């Protein structure tokens, strides 16, 4: 590169040695654009004779550009076969275009110190996001966790969302409106688990979360529509808690990341090529240290693929992270788990102050919009996990597992509009609620301890994980994105220390369990 520039400079000096009569002896106006020197000529019309040196300069500049293109790192290749493929080389490949993937892409570009310094490619196999966990989520954010890492992640994410337009604003585009409902979370605890709730409350308060504890009578005063039988203690979020629109957040991250220069690729990662180095541990065991060299991206509905050479791979594939890890031969305890959400319509239900209510039986429900709609769901028992091959909804699940608890906890919902469902139970005289609609989504369920896995893998030297959040990925996404970007660019966590959520705990079999009451 610099040799070409030196030739350019020497040529200009050579002008003085070979004076050509038709050439005006004026100082050419130059200005620098970036690292290139641009030359402005002052001649008024075409020269009388062809100036060999002037043409040579232009030719050499064109040749220099072509040589730059031919060097590795640029996208030019002499055989241009398919323009729709992802680039051949990238610095960071983020597998998974959900909210976590785009958040990481945005934060890497935000933190890079040289403009255009890091080449980031986000690989997403389904641009319609039809099965993505992000867009099918209930969209809640809360600080009421028991692990300090989770509390800090939620608080940092809420802080991000407070100033979301300052972070994710793109010039001349509409501002981001998350449609955040500041209604808070309300956890109910019975006698047996009330002490856990109190300890969690102390932890949350010590980290600055705005949570309050309510006794049964205070609860009845605040929310007269709740049936407080069996409730010993309730924990209510006062600030920074509620729910928002996950699609808006995803698109905001995506738009800002694309405007900062992240490249998007529609395709599926089918293979990871890596090199192995056998090392011997202190105990004398042989461990194969692996390094990913390239990622094979298969274009959708086609046999065309592109092997992308990359320096780092980030596994943000959500429910399918376990499959991606298996391509490397490593085991990641993350698998998809199906969860149902049912939409109910009850015109006489609780009003604008309905919080995100979570009962100690595991049933949750929240208000949706202003038309008397509510959404409800619960986590099934371990043994009765539904099949994850598709996203079909089981309506029987609502009748058996959710409705009894919900109806007893919120009697106002019993007056739902009655209708007879076309199901085997329609012959029974009991009143069935009207479930307007329902959908299902996957949790990227961490079977080990149901908390996120964030960090490098000890055996694979350049694979980062940001997955396994088991239902909390969306609310932690801005903070997790920043944490992974810090790992990649700075080498360690700078803002929130998430080393306890790393891979080490899985290898050493020390689970970091959430002491929830559910």
């Amino acid at each position, binding site marked *: 590169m610099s040799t070409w520039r030196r030739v350019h400079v020497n040529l200009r000096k050579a002008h003085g040695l070979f004076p050509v009569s038709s050439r005006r002896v004026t100082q050419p106006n130059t200005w620098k654009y970036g690292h290139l020197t641009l030359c402005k000529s002052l001649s*008024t019309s075409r020269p009388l004779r062809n100036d060999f040196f002037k043409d040579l300069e232009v030719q050499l500049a064109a040749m220099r550009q072509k040589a730059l293109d031919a060097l590795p790192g640029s996208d030019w290749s002499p055989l241009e076969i398919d323009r729709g493929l992802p680039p051949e080389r990238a610095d960071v490949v983020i597998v998974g275009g959900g909210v976590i993937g785009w958040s990481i892409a945005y934060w890497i570009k935000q933190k890079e110190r040289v403009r255009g310094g890091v080449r980031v490619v986000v690989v997403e196999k389904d641009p319609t996001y039809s099965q993505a966990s992000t867009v099918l989520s209930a969209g809640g954010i809360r600080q009421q966790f028991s692990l300090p890492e989770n509390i800090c992640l939620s608080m940092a994410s809420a802080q991000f969302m407070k100033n979301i337009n300052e972070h994710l604003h793109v*010039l001349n585009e509409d501002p981001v409106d998350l449609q955040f409902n500041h209604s808070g979370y309300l956890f109910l605890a019975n006698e047996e688990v009330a002490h856990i709730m109190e300890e969690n409350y102390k932890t949350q308060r010590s980290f600055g979360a705005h949570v309050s504890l309510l006794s049964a009578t205070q609860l009845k005063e605040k929310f007269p529509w709740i049936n407080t039988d069996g409730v010993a203690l309730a924990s209510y979020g006062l600030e920074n808690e*509620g729910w928002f629109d996950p699609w808006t957040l995803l698109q905001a991250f995506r738009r800002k990341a*694309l405007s900062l*220069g992240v490249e998007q690729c529609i395709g599926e990662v089918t293979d990871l090529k890596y090199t192995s180095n056998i090392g011997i541990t202190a105990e004398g065991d042989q461990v194969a240290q692996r390094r990913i060299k390239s990622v094979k991206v298969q274009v959708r509905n086609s046999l065309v693929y592109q092997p992308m050479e990359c320096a780092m791979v980030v596994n943000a594939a959500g429910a399918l992270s376990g499959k991606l890890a298996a391509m490397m031969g490593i085991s990641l305890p993350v698998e998809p788990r199906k969860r149902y959400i049912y939409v109910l319509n009850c015109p006489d239900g609780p009003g604008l102050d309905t919080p995100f209510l979570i009962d100690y039986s595991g049933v949750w429900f929240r208000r949706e919009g202003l038309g008397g709609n509510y959404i409800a769901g619960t986590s099934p028992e371990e043994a009765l996990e539904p099949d994850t091959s598709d996203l079909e909804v089981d309506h029987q699940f609502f009748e058996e597992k959710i409705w009894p608890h919900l109806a007893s906890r919120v009697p106002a919902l019993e007056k739902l509009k009655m209708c007879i469902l076309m199901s085997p139970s329609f012959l029974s005289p009991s009143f069935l609620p009207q479930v307007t609609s329902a959908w299902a989504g996957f949790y990227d369920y961490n079977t080990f301890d149901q908390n996120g896995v964030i960090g490098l893998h000890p055996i694979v030297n350049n694979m980062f994980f940001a997955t396994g959040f088991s239902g909390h990925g969306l609310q932690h996404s801005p903070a997790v994105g920043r944490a992974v970007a810090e790992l990649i660019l700075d080498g360690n966590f700078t803002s929130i220390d998430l080393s306890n959520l790393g891979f080490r705990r899985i290898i050493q079999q020390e689970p970091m369990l959430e002491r929830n009451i559910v």
Partner: protein
Amino acid sequence: PVERCCHVCPFMSLYRCCQRSALLVVYRRSLSSVSPPSSVSPSSSVSPSSSVSPPSSVSPSSSVSPSSSVSPSSSLSPPPLHTRFLRYLTQRFYDVEMLQSWSFLRRWKRVQKRNTYYGYAQENYGSDIASAYYILNLKGGFRFVGQSEWFIADQRGKFNWAFLDHKNTPLEEVNMNYTGINYRGLDNLEVQKSLRTLSIRGCPEVDDWFLARLHMFEDSLEELDISHCPRITTGGLAALRNLKGLKRLDVSSLPGISSPGVVIILLEEMLPKCDVTANGYDHTLREES
């Protein structure tokens, strides 16, 4: 950088395209006004082809032809300053874009700076004086508990320093209409546990997150006026559920609420003891097109 820019271009907004094409039209028109049409055509053929890539003329060859047709003008008369300036700007597109985004960020930083925590005043004069000073600095007004006179800053920001005499007197009524208060500013008012009236009409920086922080006044606040605030939406009004002692609430003319009729009814249900005022809404039924 060229490759990156080409990937970004499909996502250029219509406004940006119009901005750029407007600048290019002025450029071309200025060229055609001073030089004969024959020499304009090479430059005009260059600019549409470069409409996909930025007109920052990275390759020297394309920069030669437009600038070569500039020089006839120098022999006739220099083009006016605004034309030359616009011509200069067309070659500095990304710099102008960067300046615009910086000015946007600077606006935000200015708002945050005005609403910082008045730590020095808090330490040396007590939290009540600090809150009072903060309110006066933002051109608001307040009234102490037990006093009947108001301390208000005038339009130019001048105020009476006599409030310093009332040490450790909490504030009872605060009027911050049309000021630049935002959620950070509530750090300064956090200790006012006997605040009865808060009026924040027409504040451009008051949004839902501000309303969510108002729970700190839940025991004492009786009157709240948030009318004409452009950034408040329905989700923020749900945050007023904590103010159970509220007696008067004014939510008139909030442009951010999509269906005001329903929201007002739900608000009245949520706060049964409160008298909700909601003027300035058009409740006529409109046909869904």
